[in-house]
């Protein structure tokens, strides 16, 4: 059951922020619509991840993955097939894959880690220039300036 239901309920499009009455302080009511416990989903996640809570390969939200050998992904979970499909168009981030396959971040990392082990995906890590923080900020600045002139 769960996988498809979860993908559908997680939604692929933008999610509207929960409706709140005007002047309702966010903290007092706890924002409970955005903070939901899914017990049934937790059970199905257990099945997808085989009960593991940590991926073998260390990844971050913005780590990019790209396709190495899609044939080696055959025969695994539907979520894994979807993940490989998403990476076909070019490097795709962990966060984006998670959102599009409808799994939480950590479960997504476990699925992706298995795909790395199987040879289907590789992490597309930045070159050494990314470790220079000043250079990175300057590059970000020039990218944003170009974008600003495009939208202005």
């Amino acid at each position, binding site marked *: 059951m769960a996988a498809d239901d979860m993908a559908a309920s997680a939604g692929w499009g*933008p999610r509207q922020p929960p409706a709140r009455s005007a002047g309702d302080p966010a903290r007092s009511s706890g*924002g409970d619509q955005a903070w939901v416990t899914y017990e049934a989903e937790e059970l199905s996640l257990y099945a997808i991840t085989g009960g593991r809570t940590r991926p073998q390969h260390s990844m971050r939200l*913005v780590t990019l993955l790209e396709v190495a050998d899609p044939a080696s992904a055959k025969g695994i979970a539907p979520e894994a097939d979807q993940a490989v499909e998403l990476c076909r168009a070019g490097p795709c981030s962990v966060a984006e894959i*998670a959102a599009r396959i409808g799994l939480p971040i950590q479960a997504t990392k476990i699925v992706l880690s298995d795909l790395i082990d199987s040879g289907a995906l590789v992490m597309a890590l930045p*070159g050494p220039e990314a470790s220079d*923080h000043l250079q990175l*900020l300057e590059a*970000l600045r020039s990218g944003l300036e170009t974008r600003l002139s495009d939208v202005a």
Partner: protein
Amino acid sequence: MSPDMRTEGHGPTTVKIIVSGGFGAGKTTLIGAASEIEPLTTEEYLTEVSDGIDSLAGVERKATTTVALDFGRLTFRDQQMVLYLFGTPGQDRFWFTWDDLVVGAVGAMVLIDTRRLADGFAAVGYFEQTGMPFVVAINEFDDAPYRYSPAEVRAALEVPDRVPVVRCDARVPSSVITVLLTLVDHALTYEYEQPRPSAPVEQPHAV
């Protein structure tokens, strides 16, 4: 394909900026205005050991909560860079503990809805304490009964002098990108003026 197990390739540099603020402050609108994709939502289970406020004496209890994260993306091809904007969940105390979200961010923006000024207080305090460069952006809603000046917001939220406080319209791409530029300029000033504090250690994080 080569039979050897390659686990890493080369790709663009990815950077992230955190967009924080209370519920309804306009975080998702702002992300959507700047993003080249429709904002996406993903979820994560966060676990925290409760600090005793709601636990029995001597008994550690863990609270697991699902947090929903909205995000968007901007690709800068010439710079070989992808920028992700992550909108933090409204309830602060959980996402503050989410290393994967916070560690390595180049900076943060605290979006303020002047109808609910106090909602920004926790985020300002948090970023101030972490030393992460941040700016405060006042989202100007059409129906706000009164437009607070940046100076009034700075005083109300105890924003330090060196932190920029600017106005923006979260619906307008050029306005949002201008705020992002203000943040990057501010981060660059930080970099040029003071040696960078040692980078936070990246640690695997448990669910």
